[in-house]
């Protein structure tokens, strides 16, 4: 019997080791476009292996409950993950991430209710992991609700940051008392988790839609950290390694995203974009006028261009126009036009989100270029086609010091010979400021839903 247990123990440890290797190997492969597809398969194999051997863990019961939970949840997650539209991916990541944070908090909760057996260091790690996990859980759910459109507005009130700070301090203090042993029992543990959950909500509620990707990424890193801490408590090396890797990778990813918007993480968390945007209203000293253009004229312009750069933005994602846009571009390529796609780091709802949408439509990724790679190309392009992008092509970010988006790197669409802007109406972009590009002499406005407008362009090309 003892040797059997030892065999199981050895098998579990070896499998966790293999899983940790597969996770890191998989993530490494996911960081290059050529090998990315295989990466998730390796990581998935690691996950399956680790989960299966965990059933052999000695001294367990409640197998029925366990299977019911795993199977029901897996079916729901599989179904929702398969069915969701590509444009809704960011909020699904937020939702699944929140679930992971909740699971880490649940582990901490059970350990706390069991009580006693641990020394204070493990107790402190467990409580910290529980705190972070709970914050990530409630915060991610708010992020999900906002991106899904269930919560429409950023919610701000005077003294909000003081309230947030007090809430965090309360959660930390309650956690400290739990570790110290002054606070015990159902009431104390519940109060601790309520404070932590409340802080997560308060933290996410004032953040506007455009900043959500950064916040989701931050919550992702936090969940990783929470998992690692609970891994220390459970003495589980796979959890420690996977959680820490994600915590570090997620932190770096969050920094990269914030930097792409020329903002610090603190700036994203503690100051709403709208606060500075409102002040920008005063500036309306833009010269020139909006010059509309017909789709048929645009079709001619594109057909006889040598080089066209397409700049997709959030409007394209909303209108689900990625397939039409690629159809248009294929028609242009057939005519010998050089077509490139220029992606701003924060185009769409998440860095890389636009790439995913274009890839869905079948656009090969070697036609897609980052800001740094393509920005010098605009001056030699005959036409730049801006589809539902606004702030990321606003030249004010380069030239007007008083603009709220001053300093944000932008795509130099204004340097192209002609700029065509497809836009739903004359409204302003997310930041609520005027866009000088739209008033420039070489800019023409094509009003309409991105999908319809591009459809008309395709029609126009066919008639040539």
């Amino acid at each position, binding site marked *: 019997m003892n040797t059997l247990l030892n065999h199981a123990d050895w098998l579990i440890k070896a499998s*966790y080791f293999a*899983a940790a290797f597969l996770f890191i190997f998989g*993530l490494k492969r*996911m*960081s290059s*476009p*050529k090998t*990315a*597809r295989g*990466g*998730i398969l390796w990581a*998935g194999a690691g*996950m399956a292996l680790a*989960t299966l051997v*965990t*059933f052999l863990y000695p*001294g367990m*019961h*409640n*197998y029925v*409950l*366990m299977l019911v939970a*795993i199977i029901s*949840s897996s079916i*729901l*997650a*599989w179904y*929702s993950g*398969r069915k969701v539209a590509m444009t809704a991916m*960011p909020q699904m*990541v937020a939702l699944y991430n929140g*679930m*992971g944070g909740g*699971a880490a908090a*649940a582990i901490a909760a*059970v350990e706390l209710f069991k009580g006693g057996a641990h020394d204070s260091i493990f107790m402190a790690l467990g409580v910290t992991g529980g705190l972070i996990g709970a914050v990530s859980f409630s915060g991610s759910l708010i992020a999900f609700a906002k991106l899904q459109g269930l919560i429409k507005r950023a919610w701000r009130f005077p003294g909000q940051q003081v309230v947030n700070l007090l809430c965090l301090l309360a959660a930390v203090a309650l956690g400290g008392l739990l570790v110290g042993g002054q606070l015990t029992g159902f009431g104390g543990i519940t109060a601790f988790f309520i404070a932590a959950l409340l802080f997560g909500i308060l933290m996410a509620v004032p953040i506007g839609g455009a900043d959500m990707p950064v916040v989701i990424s931050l919550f992702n890193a936090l*969940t990783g950290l929470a998992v*690692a801490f609970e891994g*220390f408590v459970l003495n589980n090396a*796979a*959890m*420690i*390694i*996977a959680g820490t*890797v*994600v*915590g*570090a*990778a*997620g932190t770096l*990813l969050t920094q*990269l995203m914030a930097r792409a918007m020329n903002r610090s993480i603190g700036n994203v968390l503690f100051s709403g974009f709208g606060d500075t945007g409102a002040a920008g209203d005063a500036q309306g000293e833009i010269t020139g006028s909006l010059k509309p253009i017909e789709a048929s004229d645009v079709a001619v312009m594109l057909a006889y261009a040598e080089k066209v750069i397409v700049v997709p933005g959030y409007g394209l994602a909303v209108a689900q126009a990625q397939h039409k846009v690629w159809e248009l571009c294929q028609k242009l390529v057939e005519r010998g036009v050089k077509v490139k796609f220029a992606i701003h780091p924060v185009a769409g709802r*998440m860095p*890389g989100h636009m*790439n*995913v949408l274009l890839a*869905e439509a079948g*656009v*090969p*990724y070697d036609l897609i270029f980052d800001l740094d790679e393509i920005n010098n190309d605009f001056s030699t392009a005959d036409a730049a086609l801006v589809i539902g992008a606004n702030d990321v092509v606003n030249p004010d970010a380069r030239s007007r010091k008083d603009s709220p988006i001053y300093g944000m790197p932008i795509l130099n669409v204004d340097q192209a010979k002609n700029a065509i802007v497809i836009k739903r109406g004359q409204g302003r972009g997310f930041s609520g400021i005027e866009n000088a590009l739209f008033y420039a002499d070489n800019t023409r406005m094509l009003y309409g839903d991105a999908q319809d407008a591009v459809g008309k362009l395709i029609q126009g090309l066919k008639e040539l």
Partner: protein
Amino acid sequence: MIDGFIALYIFMLAAFTGYEVIARVPVILHTPLMSGSNFVHGIVLVGAMVVLGQADGVLEQTIGFIGVFLAAGNAVGGYVVTERMLEMFRTSGTKTKNKAEPAP
């Protein structure tokens, strides 16, 4: 039991590994990678299973059940979403060639 300092070493090395893996990744892969790392912390499932497996009493079992439920959603959902995103990364040589045939 993993010795305290060994655990600290593991923590440090894993943190550097995570940082290095992401350090030179192109913007195009940011969202898939965030999604992929979201999947990887689904490993919390094994911890939740162990905790539920050793839970006694209705309270512990309920929380343990919730933990396993949430963790499995993280792992499975994270995998499906990441796989769907990455499915789309192809070079112009492969699939698009067939797709580029003009419709008659």
